[in-house]
């Protein structure tokens, strides 16, 4: 069989959302095949279908020419598949040995740990791991080693096809180098590899063949030799917003936000901030561009006050807010969160109630000190609906869960962009909403700048950053690696280069090559 795995018209729906739309991919035996796409493109869903964690609504899967229908991962494993998930399937409090043998133990009742150790010794040797690790607790090990254990888990179960889901997301650069060596060794030993990622430089380095997904569709399939990183990026991102650009205005104002040397620990699921610093001038829109998972969450949480850095300082509007919990904050920073449903809104609440969140102590909404002033509250809500064109079915008493994503976001924007806030933190403010609402919210943000407010925009949508920012900082691996002060002639490619891990020294060379 030339192809070890064939996906034919795989479709998977979650309610109205089509996560995989008639995906057909052929994986050549012995190849390293990468599947790339932005977050939400449907890559992980597809692999979960292949691995038996999810059942497809339509389509079929062939393994080594034979039709297979996995109703559970156990069947996939028995057939010869192995999967290394982005979030490791390990138990921190258990030993390395127990983590590996769990579900695949030797012995019918009593555990024969000794025999398992014997069987695993050759694996450990070839991965360069000491036998002392057998009895070490998983939690005590570095992420790089944990990943090796995950791989050994799959190999021990005689996987022929190994799927890696975003494997380098939490590895240090050194660990990433080691990881690639490992993958090549596996490949040289006959294993077929599927590699899921959005890190184009890594894809270009390791893959034989590349399939590109976008919004649940397969948009392209190429051989590595036939494509450039740039072309891949275009296939991946695809969406073209009206390339509105703000006119660059020279800004010599003082800094209204200063972030200095923030450090957070590296742990499972976090790259950790590694002395991250930047500052934002009054009246500007500062865009922090970066691929998801490079420290944005940690930065935002520290700015909001729900997390404390190990070291470093944050000053907002002259107040030192490092480690200050939100309810004690004295600055006026508004927050438009990335996840509107979990951090921005109380979903069962109505529009008028959500507009009060955090503002219910304001004198205009209260009379007699504790009673809610419904007249003013309703007026406030009606104004917001009008001013921000929020599409409602009845009015302020609509529960927000009945609104579309874009309108939900408008409620948050309406609440946060009130006159009190002089600084605004917006994180992926247009994630997952319709084009019309995106444009509208962008114009709101620009309007705030006209009013003299300061905006810190953190986004993984490069077009959004380019459209709105006066200055751009690129976040990569827990640091701001480059700040562009003049965005007049800035190109997406240049920003993208730094977003994907490019180094300043190498940029001139790259630019010369294109």
């Amino acid at each position, binding site marked *: 069989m030339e192809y070890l795995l064939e996906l034919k018209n795989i479709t998977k729906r979650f309610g109205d959302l089509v996560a995989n739309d008639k995906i057909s991919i052929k994986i050549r035996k012995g190849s390293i095949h990468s599947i790339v796409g932005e977050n939400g493109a449907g890559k992980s869903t597809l692999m979960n279908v292949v691995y038996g*964690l999810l059942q497809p609504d339509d389509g079929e899967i062939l393994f080594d020419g034979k039709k297979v229908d996995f109703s559970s991962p156990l069947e996939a494993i028995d057939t010869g598949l192995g999967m290394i998930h982005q979030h490791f399937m390990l138990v921190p409090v258990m030993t390395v040995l127990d983590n590996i043998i*769990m579900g695949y133990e030797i012995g019918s009742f009593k555990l024969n740990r000794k025999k398992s150790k014997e069987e695993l010794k050759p694996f450990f040797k070839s991965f360069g791991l000491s036998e002392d690790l057998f009895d070490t607790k998983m939690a005590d090990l570095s992420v790089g080693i944990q990943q090796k254990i995950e791989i050994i888990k799959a190999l021990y179960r005689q996987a022929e096809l190994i799927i890696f889901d975003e494997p380098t997301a939490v590895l240090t650069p050194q660990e990433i180098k080691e990881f690639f060596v490992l993958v090549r060794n596996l490949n040289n030993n006959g294993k077929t590899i599927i590699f899921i990622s959005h890190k184009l430089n890594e894809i270009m380095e390791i893959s034989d063949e590349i399939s590109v997904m976008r919004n649940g569709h397969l948009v392209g399939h190429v051989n590595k030799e036939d494509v450039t990183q740039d072309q891949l990026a275009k296939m991946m991102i695809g969406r073209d917003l009206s390339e509105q650009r703000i006119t660059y205005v020279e800004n010599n104002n003082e800094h209204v936000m200063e972030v200095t040397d923030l450090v957070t620990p590296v742990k499972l699921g976090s790259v950790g901030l590694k002395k991250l610093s930047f500052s934002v001038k009054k009246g500007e829109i500062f865009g922090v561009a970066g691929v998801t998972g490079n420290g944005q969450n940690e930065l935002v949480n520290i700015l909001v006050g729900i997390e404390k850095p190990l070291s470093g300082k944050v000053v907002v509007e002259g107040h030192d807010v490092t480690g200050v919990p939100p309810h004690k904050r004295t600055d006026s920073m508004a927050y438009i969160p990335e996840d509107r449903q979990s951090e921005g809104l109380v979903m069962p609440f109505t529009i008028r109630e959500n507009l009060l969140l955090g503002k219910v102590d304001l004198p205009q909404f209260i009379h007699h000190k504790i009673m809610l002033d419904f007249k003013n509250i309703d007026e406030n809500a009606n104004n917001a609906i009008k001013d921000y064109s929020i599409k409602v079915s009845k009015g302020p008493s609509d529960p927000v869960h009945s609104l579309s994503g874009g309108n939900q976001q408008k409620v948050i924007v309406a609440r946060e962009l009130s006159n009190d806030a002089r600084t605004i933190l917006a994180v992926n403010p247009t994630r997952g909403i319709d084009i019309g609402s995106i444009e509208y919210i962008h114009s709101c943000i620009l309007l705030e700048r006209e009013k003299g407010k300061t905006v810190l925009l953190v986004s993984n949508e490069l077009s959004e950053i380019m459209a709105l920012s006066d200055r751009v900082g690129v976040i990569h691996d827990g640091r701001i690696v480059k700040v562009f002060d003049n965005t007049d002639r800035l190109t997406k490619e240049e920003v993208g280069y730094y977003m994907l891990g490019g180094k300043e020294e190498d940029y001139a060379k790259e630019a010369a090559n294109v």
Partner: protein
Amino acid sequence: MIDIIESIGASTIRMAMIYMLAATGSNMAEKSGILNLTIEGNMLVSAFTAVVISYFTGSPLVALVGAIMVGMIFGAFYGLLVITGKADQMISSLALNMFAAGLTTYMLIAVFGSAGATPRVAAIPELSIPVLSSIPIIGKIFFVQSPIVYAGFILVGVAYYVLKHTKFGLRIITVGENPMAASTVGINVRRLRYFAIIIAGAMGGIAGGYLSISLSSQFVKNMTAGRGYIALSTVIIGKHKPINIALAALLFGFCEALQIRLQLLDVPTQFIQIIPYVVTVVVITFFVGKDDNPSAIAQPF
């Protein structure tokens, strides 16, 4: 003096075994990720069942077996509610406990026509182990006890062994810590949890039977009197480890043994009686971190 030591020591073991049995079993369920507050109700229905069966068959042995089986059914029912039905585990536990209380009192009247207690029935006699029981002091404390006590100590050892050295134990622990990881390697999380809660039910059944037809020879209305919750305490204080749980059970057994002695002195008994509860609160506040509970506890899968 020696008499007092022997007497208190023997009482300690005797009372501690209630908690030891129930807690060791419940620990299995909790290790697999199920919050188990149903010990109280479990013990109560089993205690009643033991008395009823002993009454009608005259055989305490058959009665004990019956108590265990009823305990298993009780556990399975709880499992049905919270594993398959995904009901809130805490409230379901409390509801089941209430249900057990109502059911046993109801049956007390329905079967025996009494509102307070059953008549005396055939009970399990103490068994004095030859040779060992002649050892000074220790002999009287450890080796003149109900056979259930001996079985109990063995079961604690079995529990320890199972969790540490068997396939089943390893999977139980995994399922309680990271059910997702377990299911990705093909372990049937729900089925394993059912096993665990049924085991807990069985051991609660032994504890209940021990209470009614070994420590006593009748069923008295609501005779568990909160002991199920003390057993829960020992699980928490013992940080879900079988040996530590057994030690905590001994501690509280000691408190109970002491209580009776101290009534002869002037110390108000209530101060002794609240020791298990206060100790639990203190331990759970200052000494039990988030790490001491199985990570996936009380989350339906």
